[in-house]
């Protein structure tokens, strides 16, 4: 197993003084689920948004350090961010279907990437909807508005939309926070399948979900990486007092 992503001394502060990262260094393994967890405002989402440079849309006061993906520093101003975002897909906390049909949602990124061949697009629709475990539920209604689906279905279509671009890394920011337990289970099952092919970084919406899904887990508190290790050992015998307190529910 190799590190797909190497984060080195990453620090960041937003212009409004909100949530920031303090000197975070960690490696993220290929073909595994790495979970970033901790109380709100700890820097988890910020870190995710650094990995696909979505933070470019936000006002940032200062940032330093580097993020190497396959050995290349993606924070370099010369990075092709469009190509980066195709390689590093993201699923958001609330499902956001674009105002178009299910099929159009799935092929949106591909069409922007210049794919016009109908056969390729159809292939991508079927392949990615199957990977996201939603194909059977939507295959007969691909041309209906995506917004007509239930929240859980929408979120899996959003996942399929990311998968259609054949990314290498998938970022998920509390993807099940608005979903019922059954939909949550489906999304988690899909993730377990997906980690065979992709590098997955998940901000879970609960500690239980973190423990269920994590191959590796990182505990963040007020912008600092407190503890990082294999999921199994971190959730059973945490090394740090703060991690233990948080997992035991002594603060949140």
């Amino acid at each position: 197993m190799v590190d797909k992503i190497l984060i080195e001394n990453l620090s960041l502060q937003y212009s409004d003084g909100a949530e920031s990262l303090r000197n975070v260094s960690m490696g993220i393994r290929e073909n595994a689920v790495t979970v970033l967890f901790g109380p709100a405002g700890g820097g988890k989402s910020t870190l995710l948004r650094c990995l696909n440079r979505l933070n470019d849309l936000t006002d940032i006061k200062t940032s330093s350090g580097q993020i190497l993906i396959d050995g290349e520093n993606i924070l370099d101003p010369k990075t092709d961010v469009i190509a980066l975002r195709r390689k590093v897909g993201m699923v958001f906390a609330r499902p956001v279907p674009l105002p178009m049909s299910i099929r159009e949602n799935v092929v949106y990124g591909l069409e922007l990437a210049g794919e016009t061949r109908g056969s390729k697009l159809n292939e991508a629709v079927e392949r990615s909807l199957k990977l996201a475990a939603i194909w059977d539920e939507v295959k007969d209604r691909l041309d209906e508005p995506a917004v007509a689906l239930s929240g859980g279905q929408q979120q899996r279509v959003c996942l399929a939309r990311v998968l259609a671009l054949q990314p290498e890394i998938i970022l998920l920011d509390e993807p099940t926070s608005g979903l019922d337990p059954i939909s949550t289970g489906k999304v988690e099952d899909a993730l377990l399948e997906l980690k065979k092919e992709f590098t997955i970084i998940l901000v879970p919406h609960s500690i239980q979900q973190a423990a269920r899904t994590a191959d590796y887990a990182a505990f963040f508190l007020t912008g600092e990486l407190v503890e990082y290790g294999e999921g199994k050992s971190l959730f059973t015998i945490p090394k740090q007092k703060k991690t233990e307190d948080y997992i035991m529910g002594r603060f949140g």
Partner: protein
Amino acid sequence: MMTKFLSRNRHAVQRLGFVAITLMAIVTVLPIVGTILFIIYKGGSAISWEFLSGFPHDGMRAGGIFPAIVGTLYLTLGTAVFSVPLGIAAAIYLAEYAKDNQWTRLIRLAIINLAGIPSVVYGLFGLGLFVLFLKFGTSILAASLTLSIMTLPVIISASEEALRTVPQAFRTVSISLGATRWQTIRKIILKEALPGILTGVILGLERAAGETAPILFTGAAFFLPRLPNSPFDATMALPYHLFVISTQVPEMPIQIQYGTALVLLAFVLTMNVIATVIRSRARARRQW
């Protein structure tokens, strides 16, 4: 005593309140409906095919208003040509690209103030800039440009508002899928904002169609025996024609005045109805 009375008769008080509010609502609607009905009543008899398609004759005391109708159409279209692309582009800049700083605050302040300038001032400005300085003469071109400046703030404000109403999440998601800002605007934001933008455009043009003062010095003609055949010709126009036949021509038959007013009103109200239909249809179809 009073509070006791009120608390015991809460339902009566509530009903009284409703009656008062309903009455006030009726009072506000009455003048509009009254005006329309009055103009239809006075001018309806003047409307005929000859009135709509003929030229005025006998010193405008008889005949039709065809050149004024065509002129107003030309001026409205001319205004659209300049103000719509410019207005939408400005709105896209303000809503999608501009950062909130001194500079954009200055632009916004300018737009708000532009909307408050009396229309006759636009007319004088148009005379100075387009007619005299740029030597366009009193022409459809000069009048359209003058009306465009007057219409711009309406179109910019409405379009910016429409763009801002489109959920931010669409932008974030689109960009995260490898779209550029401009692709996001073109493929999603503009499409979703289009009904709101169109409403603003129509309301702006409707105002331009009904204005007299801005075209008074810049392009309106008292009387022309033929239709204009280039943008550098002056033109007759409905609002100015109405002003002329109401104040400048003695012994003017009253039904021609009201007939002209009715045509202008119908023109403007039709645009209004189109805007309303677009808006309500879009609202029903909206997916967010």
